[in-house]
């Protein structure tokens, strides 16, 4: 298409700045002109070509002196857990879970809490440059509703766990189908999915019934796997094998499975993940804070496994800032492997953008800024002392920037943040609501 002869009015034009496309060829375009129409990138061109200036748009955004890049993709969250942020830290994992988190959840998780918590988390994510998240929690439809209301793109997973008791296979199929059909055609923003909590909290019957439903509907299936040494020991004791092997033997592994954490896989399990084209979600800060361990991500990447980045829930991080997560991901593996060349800045930025999209099966729609893709992008203000001088864009974004440097965010062609203001979220009332919930839990 010769876009210069296209007379249709655009919704938004972004002009100026430096565009990091994160395309296959990692194109970087100085002083670009980006046209957005009907929620998608209509074209990208150089801003200094005169005839391109004949476009008209309802809204013109200047990105001069800023970086434009794809919105970040957080591949693993439990959004409403921001309500428990800082409730209990620095405790042994089982103590933390069984004496603090689980009791708080059983007592305080309601539809209202899930919606309010998800809204607060979405506000935090937009303010720190995330445009898509992949979530699993109780009352997940409330999370979907919060995403829809706030203009956020979300993979929302109906979760299953054999607690307090297992769900019958027929019932699983029914719940899964109802959830998927409820959200499937609602909006391009909402992508339904299914999740099982883990191989140690779900029986093989539950795991396979949910996977069957996911295959039938062709949706993403995510599962926490091999997060702790304790989990590996439990699975060994129950099934006489390691967790990934166990999942392979019951036919869970395929290219629509997102294995979350994957901290303790054996070499042969890494081969299985690679051979089945399973995707991995890496959550370094949560795994550090909970002392779960460090996933062998450089090896995953070497074996061709697609790895996305995630923050995990707000209670084990304790923020949802993907910029800080990138900084940690880049540094952690260097010191663990004692090799300062692993996980270079570009690799890590890919994890948080295009490879995150691949991990969720959305790479045809998001993860890079290219014509035809959804206009999910962020503008990062680099005129700040901690981002000067600008020797390398990738390095600055991974090692020096933080979420607070994101100035503007667009999701599906809609401005969800401009100059750090959120037009679609009533922030004061959401914060007040969450504070009231937290007060009943025991906050100050």
């Amino acid at each position, binding site marked *: 298409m010769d876009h210069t002869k296209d007379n249709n009015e655009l919704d938004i034009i972004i002009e100026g700045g430096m565009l990091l496309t994160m395309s296959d060829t990692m194109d970087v375009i100085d002083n670009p002109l980006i046209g957005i129409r009907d929620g998608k990138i209509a074209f990208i061109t150089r801003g200094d070509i005169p005839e391109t200036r004949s476009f008209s748009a309802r809204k013109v955004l200047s990105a001069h002196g800023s970086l434009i890049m794809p919105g970040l993709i957080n591949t693993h969250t439990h959004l409403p857990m*921001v*309500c428990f*942020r*800082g409730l209990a*830290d*620095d*405790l042994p*994992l089982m103590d933390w879970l069984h004496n603090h988190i689980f009791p708080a959840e059983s007592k305080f998780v309601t539809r209202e809490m899930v919606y309010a918590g998800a809204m*607060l*988390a979405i506000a*935090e994510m937009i*303010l*720190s440059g995330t445009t898509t998240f992949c979530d699993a929690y109780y009352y997940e439809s409330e999370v979907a509703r919060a995403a829809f209301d706030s203009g956020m793109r979300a993979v929302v997973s109906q979760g299953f766990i054999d607690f307090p008791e297992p769900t019958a296979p027929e019932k699983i199929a029914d719940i899964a189908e109802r959830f998927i059909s409820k959200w499937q055609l609602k909006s391009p923003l909402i992508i339904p999915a299914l999740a099982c909590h883990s191989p140690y909290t779900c029986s093989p019957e539950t795991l396979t019934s949910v996977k069957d439903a996911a295959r039938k509907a062709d949706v993403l299936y995510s599962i926490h796997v091999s997060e702790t*040494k304790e989990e590996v020991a439990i699975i060994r004791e129950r099934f006489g094998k390691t967790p990934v092997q166990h999942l392979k033997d019951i036919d869970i592994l395929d290219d629509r499975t997102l294995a979350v954490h994957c901290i303790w896989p054996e070499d042969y399990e890494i081969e299985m993940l690679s051979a089945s084209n399973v995707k991995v979600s890496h959550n370094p*800060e949560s*795994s*550090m*804070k*909970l*002392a779960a361990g*460090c996933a062998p991500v450089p090896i995953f990447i070497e074996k061709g496994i697609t790895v996305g980045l995630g923050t995990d829930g707000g209670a084990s*991080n*304790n*923020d*949802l800032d993907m910029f800080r997560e990138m*900084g*940690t991901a*880049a*540094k952690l593996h*260097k*010191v663990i492997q*004692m*090799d*300062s*060349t692993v996980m*270079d800045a570009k690799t890590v930025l890919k994890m948080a953008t295009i490879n995150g999209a691949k991990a969720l099966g959305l790479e045809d729609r998001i993860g890079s800024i290219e014509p035809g893709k959804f206009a999910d992008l962020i503008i990062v203000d680099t005129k*700040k*002392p*901690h981002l*000067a*001088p*600008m*020797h*390398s864009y990738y*390095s*600055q974004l991974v*090692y*020096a920037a*933080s*979420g607070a*440097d994101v100035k503007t965010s667009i999701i599906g062609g809609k401005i969800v943040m401009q100059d750090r203001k959120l037009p679609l979220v009533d*922030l004061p009332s959401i*914060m007040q609501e*969450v*504070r009231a*919930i*937290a007060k009943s839990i*025991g*906050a*100050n």
Partner: protein
Amino acid sequence: MDDNGTLIKKGSIAVDGENIIAVGEKGEIESRYISREIINAEGFMVMPGLINCHTHAPMTYFRGLADDLELTDWLNNYIFPDEARFVNGEFSYLWSLLACAEMIKSGTTTFCDMYIFEDDVAMAVKSAGMRCLLGEALFDFPSPNFKNPEEGLKYTEFLIQKWASDPLVNILVEPHALYTCSFNLLQESKKLADKYGVPLGTHYLETKSEKEKLAGKYGKSPTSFLKDIGYLSEQFIAFHCVYMEEEDIRMFADHGCKMVHNPESNMKLASGVASVPEMMRAGVTVGLGTDGCASNNNLDMFQEMDTAAKLHKVVKLDPTVMDARTVVRMATCQGAKALGMENIVGSLKAGMKADIIVIDLNKPHLTPLYNEYSHIVYAVNGADVDTVLINGKVVMKNRKLLTIAEDELMAMVEETAIRIKKQFGMN
């Protein structure tokens, strides 16, 4: 951050001149004092300014210039040659001023610096209104600032004398490291520090290769060597200490030596992980630092706290080590102690200098609030700091720097970076 870890809700701090004269309940303070200026911190958190115990401030220029390289490649092919080519006094001044702007904007009020042309660094610090402890990096080979170590020592003595009565700038003697300093330079450094009663700081056991290099050098462990030349004392500050054995830790504890932990730099350069929980258990005072910008790549002490808290948990596979309060202490009162400044900064109580930061809690990522220490370590970011006082003077208000013309500075660093690139044909 006093010894009892006192938290005051609806508190108030009375500042007179440079000093905190009273800390207490709002009503009580208000009934006792009248003030020319009142900073309302309702809905905010007020805490001591953070203390960054190890920096190379002018290295902001090198931020992002070369990353993800093998350490010796990075140093020998990028950092050292560039430093030799274009570092001068003007360079150290400008890029230190940028460092000060960044540090104030992320809540740091005091830092301990080592670089070349430190007099220029001191002048930048002075104009930014920050507090510092700094020294010229001393080593055997020529630096852009001195032809030989003798000149370096003389320059250090000049710094000590020049800044002796300054309220904000403090000087220490800083031999760069054991592997870059001769026996003689180490001894002369010690003599100079003793002559003026100033601290002595050095990079120590940062990498495995350094440890291996030093192993055969003295016919004894490097810590025993330091002991024999009189280094081990309360005035000795060792940066990094990644490769300390149990015996080294015990000797540090016995002599009251100070250790500075720089987790993000040690991670990024793949140096290793210092045994900080063991050192603390042994009674060693541990401060926190970012190290230079080129190996971090920012000077945000909130992020550094977060990393410090998490790194040791995963390395030890124990989520209870380095709890949030311990880490906040490292960045405040313990950091002050590491620099020998615990009687003037690091906690908010009557008699201390008024180095205070005010954090805006009215943000989604800081909601809700269950535990203040947890928030500071695991959720607050440098950009959440709203207002900063140093030595009783407001240096940032509502995120606007009052001592530095930020826009002009940003324009100047951008221009200078382009000029250096052109002049020296880099990249």
